[in-house]
């Protein structure tokens, strides 16, 4: 009975219920300030979660996202600091601001593609490959930054994470646009079909004359690209780049995807629900903060919610049978 109810209500119901409960418990919860705050806090998780959705949709997993964010952010910061003192004339802005950002994107995408090649072509299990990349990229971040925290960046570089457009934080706009693009790609394009098919039945996709390995490779590239974008956002939000950045991001991103109802077994899911999943994690975290629950307890709660979400996924399946 309860099973059926929960199964039908889904992520929307749970989201609304938690908002209701928290607004009763804390008078500060339902304020514009606090809600903007939540959206900002979950924006980076959402961006990484979008890339993670592609990967999990194919039945894979990417544990290296946090480390790839760290590697991208220090590459961007180091290149910027190295170039900033020099004079490039009219190209100054291009070289000092745009180039480091592009390099962050390239770094993230490249690291993701290494994952992709090894998983799709060399058939290393995604769990192991991305676990290895988690360590490699983190190590790379320490090496590139020489263990240093790099801080204070110009406005251009921090605009994505810190800027506002007509009073609305740029990061919120960006994360929603990224969700929109990803939803379009997955829902309407040939490529999106292939991603679903890869997770649903890899052999059938291959025997339909599609280069399944290339599709699989690409989703890790997309996840890496999302990390690159997230690293630019993170640098802007904190105005700091450090090699320990992004620790534990894989947890939040995977949680957002799974809580959003994308099947961990692949072939089923929606990127818009990843946004809701990220929001739910953010709201619960924010609520627990307002209620003065210690961060240690919060970790326990978030972990339990991930397990509950997968359990719920199973529940849905058995309710259907």
């Amino acid at each position, binding site marked *: 009975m309860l099973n059926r109810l929960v199964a039908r209500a889904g992520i929307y119901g749970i989201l609304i219920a938690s908002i209701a409960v928290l607004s009763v418990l804390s008078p500060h919860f339902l304020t514009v300030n606090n809600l903007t705050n939540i959206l900002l806090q979950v924006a980076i998780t959402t961006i990484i979660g979008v890339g993670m959705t592609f990967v999990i949709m194919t039945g894979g997993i990417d544990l290296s996202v946090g480390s790839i964010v760290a590697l991208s952010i220090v590459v961007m910061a180091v290149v910027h600091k190295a170039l900033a003192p020099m004079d490039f004339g009219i190209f100054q802005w291009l070289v000092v601001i745009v180039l480091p950002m592009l390099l962050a994107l390239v770094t993230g995408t490249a690291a993701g593609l290494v994952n992709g090649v090894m998983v799709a072509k060399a058939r290393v299990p995604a769990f192991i490959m991305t676990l290895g990349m988690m360590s490699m990229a983190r190590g790379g971040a320490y090496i590139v930054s020489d263990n240093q925290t790099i801080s204070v960046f110009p406005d251009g570089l921090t605009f994505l994470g810190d800027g506002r457009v007509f009073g609305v934080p740029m990061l919120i706009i960006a994360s929603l646009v990224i969700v929109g693009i990803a939803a379009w790609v997955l829902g309407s394009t*040939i490529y999106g079909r292939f991603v*679903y098919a890869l997770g*649903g*039945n890899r*052999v059938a996709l291959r025997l*339909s*004359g599609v*280069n399944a390995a290339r599709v699989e490779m690409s989703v890790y590239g997309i996840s890496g690209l999302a990390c690159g974008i997230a690293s630019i956002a993170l640098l802007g939000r904190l105005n700091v780049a450090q090699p320990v950045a992004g620790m534990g991001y894989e947890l939040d991103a995977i949680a957002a995807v799974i809580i959003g109802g994308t099947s961990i077994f692949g072939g089923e899911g929606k990127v818009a629900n990843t946004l809701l999943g990220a929001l739910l994690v953010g709201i619960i975290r924010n609520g627990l903060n307002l209620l003065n629950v210690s961060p240690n307890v919060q970790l326990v709660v978030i972990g339990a919610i991930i397990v509950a979400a997968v359990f719920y996924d199973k529940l849905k399946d058995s309710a259907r049978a």
Partner: protein
Amino acid sequence: MPVEPGLVTRKLGKSFPGVRALDDFDFVIRPGEVHCLLGENGAGKSTFINILSGAFAEYEGEIEIDGQPVTITTPARAKALKIATIHQEQCLVPAMTVEENIHLGDEPRRNGFMVDKKAARKAAQEVLDRLGVKIPLDARVRNLSTAEAQMVEIAKALVLDARILILDEPTASISDRDTAELFRIIRELKARGTGFVYISHRLQEIAEIADTVTVMRDGRKVGELTAEEASADRIVEMMVGRPVGELSAPPRNVETDDIAMAVSGLSGNGVIDASFALKRGEILGFAGLVGAGRTDLMKMVFGALPVAAGTISVDGKDVVIDSPRAAVRLGIGYLSEDRKGEGLVLKQAIDWNIALASLPALSNGPVVDRKRERAAAEGHRKRLSIATPSLSKPTGQLSGGNQQKVVVAKWLETGCRVLIFDEPTRGIDVNARAEIHTLIRALADKGSSIIVVSSDLPELIQVSDRILAMSEGRITGEVAVARNARQAEVMELMLGGTRA
């Protein structure tokens, strides 16, 4: 009332949301008897055997064993009652050895918690000897053939001292020779008093092995026949619910020298020096035992397996086919023997699956044109009479026959002119099987060139214009069906003989 020995069910019933899967079902399994259960897909056979194997915690009606009422609400309960089920899908652990699998879940113990290895080995060897099969105890199950793995499952049931053995389409994927071996074992176990429930779509087998035949339709029992009463026509009539006319079609005439595809000296993956030519509009059958290399040959032709040597030409031009992608571009389609595992994305909608191999043609740039996709699928639904209320339904919800039609539609949509059907009617009921045969012939009449690989010899003879037999990786001979195909003749070639 006299106590009836064996297992008796009375008014057995089971409902699922929206479906009455089994209704008022009376069935008897007597010791030493093979009771065949027949019915089209969805007739309720699986529901029935699932109840007997303890898959459902709830069901309606009563079950008695030797006059004692019992309830079978868990698999453990079924095991305790000595009921063993051998499902179509194997329930063995591929990475473990034959011996370990035979004892899995019921290991002989020493000191309460350690496996008694000596006793285990002895018992396992004993049971294999009793079955008269030679399978090494230390072989990993993943290295066994389907037929051998099946023997291991039977051995496992024997170790449990099963009194009732339920076999769900045991011959669906084993060769005729292995089938004969299986029947020998069934007869031996029968003589020792084991009762069997035997499910199969192959009517010939039933004539050979059954003592009693029960036919089901729509979750109900249509009737029970003795082996003598159970003629093929009578059974099919009961299954379908109407008399059947002549199912076999007249021979077709393919008098052309127009070669659609020619394969020359193809080797690799156990296939040795295979050469054949497929004429335009021809249906070319491939007969052979399981493991003769037919599927591997086809997968090489389709680019799904690497080719070691040999050439392929399409429309007279030499081509390189190094991936399924290349094959599809050359207009070749392959319908896998494993429809669910290799042909369809079951969670996705019917039109989605039909479009999968032709998306670029159904799209504007990178964006899929839903209207065109829907229209294309709708066309195929009409032409192939795919029975479904909606094209948006998940493909997994269709019956086997309709799923096969969806795969056919997928390939027709690509516009391919060479179609390779690998075991096109495996697991498909009698009625849908005839439909698929008609469909294959209709496609050939319209100019498609078709290869049919099948382990079901009557099917090949029914549908093909010409049959090539393969044995141990080689093409061993050819029979023109229209003139003189006799089952024995093809059989001889399959077993490795060569014809002048």
